[in-house]
Structure formats: structure tokens, C-alpha cells
């Protein structure tokens, strides 16, 4: 069941110049609608903007009296700018939890790959698998590799790549995925979130090594629940699915990477 709740901001932190981390009290939202890591919430960003903004859940927890949920987002436009200006104690209008998350088993071992603002949703997967997974985090520069400390605590191993070489490996995450899988293929799946070209490259490497791969896709969204049909993802079989309802996580082999 999906719910709309008025949610209080209980903490807020800037992770770098553009990215904000917020913890919200979300009532019974986690209890009623959590299906696993990788889902998203749809947040109303002021009265002047019609559309809500979809934001991935970083981590969430059932709690008393209210469940809590952490989000991290990058300021990209008017809506996220408005959201970044909210303060601790302010209330947000949130729909959640929406979409299907990653298919993960708590006893599994996964290779988690996050690029830039695609890093936060991988954190839920790290927590869910209780320290057994490996994380590969990437960004344009060192400051874009956010939440690294959390992954250090919640993963068996963390590898970092930056486009400019300012932290870790100088290059893209798919090179580190290749390096890791050539040393150790014993993962249940590669789970990835980030820009589409990154996802395509990671999916390609996973396929080469015969490891299943799930990707979380980002599309311009309307209703967030599957009614308006705008957040279209082209599938290899010629059909068009929707990020909000069918995804945002898809099996990488389903996706038409050439679309």
C-alpha cells in the first residue's frame, strides 16, 4: 500500500556543494509500503511547482512512534533547490514508498555500484546484506563520492573511482567492476545506480562475467505511481515500461541500451 504523509525533517546535512542528506519522520510509511532497498519517495516541492520530485531512499527503518527514512539528493533545478532550503523541523508532503527495489536476499553477497547521486540508494542494499557486499563508488571528483564512510562501515570492501583521479582509481567505475569480477566472481548479482551510460557499461561487464545485473533507472516522472505513463523505459523486446511502477530497478538484460 502506498501512502501520503506529512513528514518532519529531523536532520539535514550538506554532503558536498550540491548534495543534501535528510532524515525524515514518515509515520507508518516504512511499515506499510517498504518492499526492500531501491524504492523511492515522491516529494512535493513547494506550491509553485506542480510536479513532485522522485528521490531515492538511502535507508529506512521501522520505528516507534514514527518510521524514519533517509534521502540524499542533488540540487539540479527549482524543485530540488526549494527542497534543499528546508530546515530541520519543517514538514514535507511525501508519497511513498514507490516503485520496486532491488531483488536482494538478506543472506546474499552483492557487488554494489553507485555513481554520483546514484550512490545513496546502494546504501540500503549494503545495510540489507549486513556487511557481506562490496561497494564500488564513483564520481566526477572526490567530493562527489558521497557517503563513503557509511559504506566503509556497512560493506566488506569499498573501491572508489573518480573521473579526474582526485580520489581512488582514475577512471570510471566499470573498470573497477571488471577488476573486481576478474578476481572474484562469487557475487549473487551486480546492483547499480547512476547515469545511464555508466549503467550500460557496468551491465556489459557483468554480462561478460556471467553475473546477473540489476540497474536502477532515472527518468522524468509525473505521477510516480504508474497512472500517467510518462517515465518511459525502452525494453529490448520493443515494449515500453515505466520507471515508477515497473522499475525503477530492471534486470539489465531487459533494457534496450541503444534506445
Amino acid at each position: 500500500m502506498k501512502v501520503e504523509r506529512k513528514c518532519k525533517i529531523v536532520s539535514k546535512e550538506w554532503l558536498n556543494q550540491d548534495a543534501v542528506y535528510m532524515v525524515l519522520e514518515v509515520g507508518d510509511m516504512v511499515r506499510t509500503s517498504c518492499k526492500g532497498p531501491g524504492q523511492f519517495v515522491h516529494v512535493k516541492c513547494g506550491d509553485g511547482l506542480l510536479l513532485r520530485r522522485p528521490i531515492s531512499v538511502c535507508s529506512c527503518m521501522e520505528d516507534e512512534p514514527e518510521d524514519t527514512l533517509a534521502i540524499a539528493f542533488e540540487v539540479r533545478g527549482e524543485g530540488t533547490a526549494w527542497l534543499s532550503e528546508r530546515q530541520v523541523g519543517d514538514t514535507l508532503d511525501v508519497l511513498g514508498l514507490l516503485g520496486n527495489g532491488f531483488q536482494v536476499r538478506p543472506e546474499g553477497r552483492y557487488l554494489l555500484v553507485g555513481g554520483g547521486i546514484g550512490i545513496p540508494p546502494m546504501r540500503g542494499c549494503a545495510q540489507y546484506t549486513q556487511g557481506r557486499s562490496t561497494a564500488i563508488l564513483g564520481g566526477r571528483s572526490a567530493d562527489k563520492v558521497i557517503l563513503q564512510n557509511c559504506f566503509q562501515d556497512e560493506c566488506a570492501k569499498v573501491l572508489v573511482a573518480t573521473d579526474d583521479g582526485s580520489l581512488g582509481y582514475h577512471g570510471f567505475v566499470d573498470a573497477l567492476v571488471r577488476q573486481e569480477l576478474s578476481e572474484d566472481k562469487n557475487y549473487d548479482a551486480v546492483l547499480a545506480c547512476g547515469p545511464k551510460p555508466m549503467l550500460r557499461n557496468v551491465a556489459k561487464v557483468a554480462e561478460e562475467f556471467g553475473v546477473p545485473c540489476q540497474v536502477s533507472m532515472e527518468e522524468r516522472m509525473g505521477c510516480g505511481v504508474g497512472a500517467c505513463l510518462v517515465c518511459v523505459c525502452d525494453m529490448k523486446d520493443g515494449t515500453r515500461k515505466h520507471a515508477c511502477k515497473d522499475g525503477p530497478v530492471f534486470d539489465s538484460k531487459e533494457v534496450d541500451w541503444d534506445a
Partner: protein
Amino acid sequence: MHNVDLSVTLAGMTMKNPVVVASGTFGFGREYGEFYDLSELGGICAKGLTLHRREGNPGPRIAETPMGILNSVGLQNPGVDAFIATELPFLRQYDVKVIANISGNSPEEYGVMCEKLAEAGVDMIEVNISCPNVKAGGLAYGTRPELAAEVTEVAKAHAGQVPVMVKLSPNVTDITEIARAVEGAGADALSLINTLRGMRIDVNTRRPILKMNTGGMSGPAVLPVAVRMVWEVSNAVKIPVLGMGGVSKGEDAAQMMLAGATAVAVGTACFADPYAPLKVRDGLAEIAARQGLSAVSELTGGVKPW
């Protein structure tokens, strides 16, 4: 506050309240049915159907504008047979009027779909002659009176006892001309407005936001245009009008009804607030009560023009 009778009758179809959800904004009801009981609504205009399944347009399909959106979905739908087999039985669990919305590439396709839907027992058929997002048919039927009349005649001939409502495009010079042609061809009701054609450009990439370059505009920004057209059409025809376009609160719905609408549809407002249709209903009831009306239907056509 005294009780106001919220029921309205649109072309022989009586609804418990005048709030319908607009086609293309509510899927087949399943998604918003997770938020509230669909029986709370007066009617549901289902997502636009075509004879065969359509995957619709490539993305991006949506762009935001001040108090509005542009969309270019392109009638993605599972086809009329799949609707009848799986979606209609789902909707029939609820005490709500089901209005099927259809688009065809030819008058014959409209006829075939009407026959199937009439046999399946929908409460009303909304004939879309105004979709701006498809190449064949679509808007062409809605912008030429003789073609609009032809499609209406075919639909009526194949719909049996099921009332036929024709959805008009605002992308015309004189909407009353099309309205009269459709009325003359036997339409039982009219719905308006469909979306207004629009465009947004990213100045950095110099690319339109929508992959189809242009799309249909909806949302609160279009309300005054819609109210004006509902008013003009209501004055030009005798058949009832379902008013839509930017309705997001009770006052908007009251404006539509004063302009001449028998009932109203809520569309884009659902994206911001899934509960918008229920809030529109309650807001409308409150206004009617405040004005001492015994029935909300007393608002229809009540505008006092200067």
C-alpha cells in the same frame, strides 16, 4: 451545514457526484485505488484505448511549465480487448461510472471499438478526436467539423444504447463550430478541453525537453481557457458538457459548472495530490452549501455574464 444533493445526470448517466477523473491521468484506476476507495468518485474516464496495443512515444514524455505540464505519451495502452478482459472487471468492483475513452486511425476503427465496448457494458464512451500526440487520426478529426461529425456518426451507429460523449480539442479557431457539428451528428454529450499544444526548449542544449518536440499542456495554468471554452460551447449546443482542464479545487469545479458544465473532470491535479478529486468534490459541496443550494446541479449554467 445542510446536506447538498451532489448527484448529477450526464446524458442519462446518473453519477453520485459530479467529479470524474480525466482520461490519461488515472490509468485504469488501479494505482489511485491503493490510496482510496474508487467508489468515492462519480466516474472514471479510463486511459485512452486504441484497437490494438500501442507502446506510445519515446521519452522524455513530460516537461514542467509554470502551474502546468506538457505531455507526449502518445496513447500507450494495452488495446481495447485487454481493457475489456482485465481492466473493466477490476473497475466493475466499484460503485463508479466507467467511461471508456477511444481513439482510432479511421472511422471504422472507432466503430469496431464502440461495438466491443457497448457489448462489454461500459457506462459511456468518450470519443477522443483530439489527441495532439499521435500522427494518424487524432487531432485531425478534432479540428475539421466534417471529419468530427463523421466519426461521431459512426460511433453512435455502433454504440447501441451506450451514450457517446465526444472530447473536443482546444487547438482550433472556433470550438463552437466543431461542437455544433458533433451535436448535429448525434453526440449525447461533449467533454472539453483536451490539452493545448505547447513546447519547451532547454536553452543550454537547444533541444526541446520532449522527445516529440511538442506536447499537450494541462494543469491549473489552462483553467481560464477551459472555462471560457466550456462557456462558449454550452451556449452553442443543447447537449450536456463535461468540463475539464486545470480543475484542482472545489472553486475551479464551481467555475466550470457555472460556465455550463454538468459535471467536471480532474486530471493533472492528481499528479500533485492523489486525493485531489475527493478534495474537489468536498470543496464543491461546501460552496453549494454556503450558497444555500439544495443540489450542486443548480450551479450548471448559472454564470451571470456582464
